């Protein structure tokens, strides 16, 4: 699923970003005063370097954590702007294979990262930077009286799952399998966010989602911990892409995500440190 247009970021990759500021600046400042103001580019001072933009393709479940990550990174590296393209992990990998511009790929699925490596689109081996465990999410008030995975077999309840094609669907099924539960699933949602939306709306009685999603829901859903969830974790690999235009900055971002500061942000959003 490609929620965000592949075109995002393309216009930012032109050579103009790297031009020497002395020659091009007066004219461009006049022409693009509005844009310059937005980007915080200052000609008069001359001291501030032109910002480099890096584009991060990230899993939908990282939306909140990485938005904060980008702000913290830019605070530390004022010359670097971070743009995001959030989507389903497999969809993002497909975009990379089809030549979508991007500097970094961070996904919830080793297989998606492996596909990118296999195609020679990765600049290095992917590194795991976080894990995520699964929880049962129920609507506020728990109308179905769900207490554990066993309730997923109750046919009278409306049970949702992620589709088998996406990581949360595979991990959720593995959890159910380990608990020897044959779930009475009523819908296989395209991604974890759409599953969460239907639980929030009270249209589904329960579903398996990431712990970070329950936290992001901020009281719109209730989370129920699952026995054995710690043994079946989602791993999040990150890798700088071979086609990166700002390679140094991309490496710096990867290092930042894996640093103490980056890990603190991730755990603050309910993810587990690497």
């Amino acid at each position, binding site marked *: *699923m490609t929620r965000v247009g592949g075109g995002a970021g393309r216009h930012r990759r032109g050579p103009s970003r790297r031009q020497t500021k002395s020659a091009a600046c007066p004219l461009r400042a006049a022409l693009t005063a509005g844009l310059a103001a937005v980007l915080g580019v200052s000609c008069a001072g001359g001291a501030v370097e032109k910002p480099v933009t890096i584009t991060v393709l990230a899993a939908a479940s990282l939306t909140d954590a990485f938005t904060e990550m980008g702000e913290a990174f830019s605070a530390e590296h004022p010359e670097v702007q971070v743009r995001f393209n959030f989507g*389903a992990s*497999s*969809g993002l990998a497909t975009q990379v294979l089809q030549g979508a511009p991007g500097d970094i790929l961070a996904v919830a699925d080793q297989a998606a990262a492996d596909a990118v490596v296999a195609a020679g689109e990765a600049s290095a081996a992917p590194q795991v930077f976080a894990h995520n465990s699964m929880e049962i999410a129920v609507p506020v008030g728990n109308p179905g009286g769900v207490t554990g995975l066993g309730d997923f077999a109750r046919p009278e309840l*409306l049970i*949702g799952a992620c*589709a*088998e*094609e*996406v990581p949360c669907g595979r991990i959720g099924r593995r959890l159910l399998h380990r608990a020897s539960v044959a779930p009475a*699933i*009523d*819908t*296989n*949602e*395209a991604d974890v966010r*759409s599953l969460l939306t*239907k639980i929030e*709306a*009270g*249209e589904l009685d329960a579903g398996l989602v990431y712990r970070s999603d329950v936290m992001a829901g901020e009281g719109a859903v209730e989370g129920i911990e699952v026995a054995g969830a710690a043994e079946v974790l989602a791993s999040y690999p990150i890798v700088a892409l071979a086609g990166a235009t700002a390679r140094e900055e991309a490496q710096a971002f990867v290092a930042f995500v894996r640093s103490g500061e980056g890990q603190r942000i991730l755990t603050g959003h309910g993810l587990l440190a690497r």
Partner: protein
Amino acid sequence: MPRRGTSRPPLALVVLAASAVAFVALPLLALAQRAPWRELGSLLVRPAVADALRLSMVTAAATTGVSLLLGVPLAWVLARVEFPGRSLVRALVTLPMVLPPVVGGVALLFALGRRGLVGQWLDAQLGVLLPFSTAGVVVAQTFVAMPFLVITVEAALRGADRRYEEVAATLGASPWTAFRRITLPLVAPGIAAGALLCWARALGEFGATITFAGNLQGRTQTLPLAVFGALESDRDAAVALSLVLVALSLVVLVVLRHRWWVLR
């Protein structure tokens, strides 16, 4: 009386028209070129594919039936009855054509879902739960596809000669009889065209369906939903399913349109 020049179409128009055809045909050709022709047979007999095919046929037909039942009277009212706010009603019922289908699906959930405006009453009083059911697929498809029938039939009614109805009335026919015996046969080609458009739109419906009715093989997973699922995991199967969808639509549009539209 053909004048000189009409026998030979203007070159500019022909070039532009040919460009339009190429624009539409090119992606379809690319799809066919990517198709796993050799494995097509084995891909299409998979249970998930057979289920999706059957479900799409059943729901698109049901959607067309419901749309005919509700949409033809609506088109008649819009075309023949003067009432305040008519243009507003017309805009309202055609709104689903421009609304992103996913938004339509969310709106349907808020209206007919278990906690929805009407849905909670349906659930409590009648025990009817539309989301995540095959009936829910028909609801979602009807929401999106019925406007195509309504505007087509309304246009046909406006273009029809009203004198036949007036004559029928002077000969003693009741308004209902005139509608049945005169109006309906008169605009039958328009109704057929509208029904076809509606059917085709229902067959391709994705956004409202997956949002309102969910995605479960055999119950709510129609062909477009199956294509979407396969796209994530099995590209060949996705292309094969898309070809089925294209071929099916093409056959029905060509055959039925020819039969109903041209021969009448």
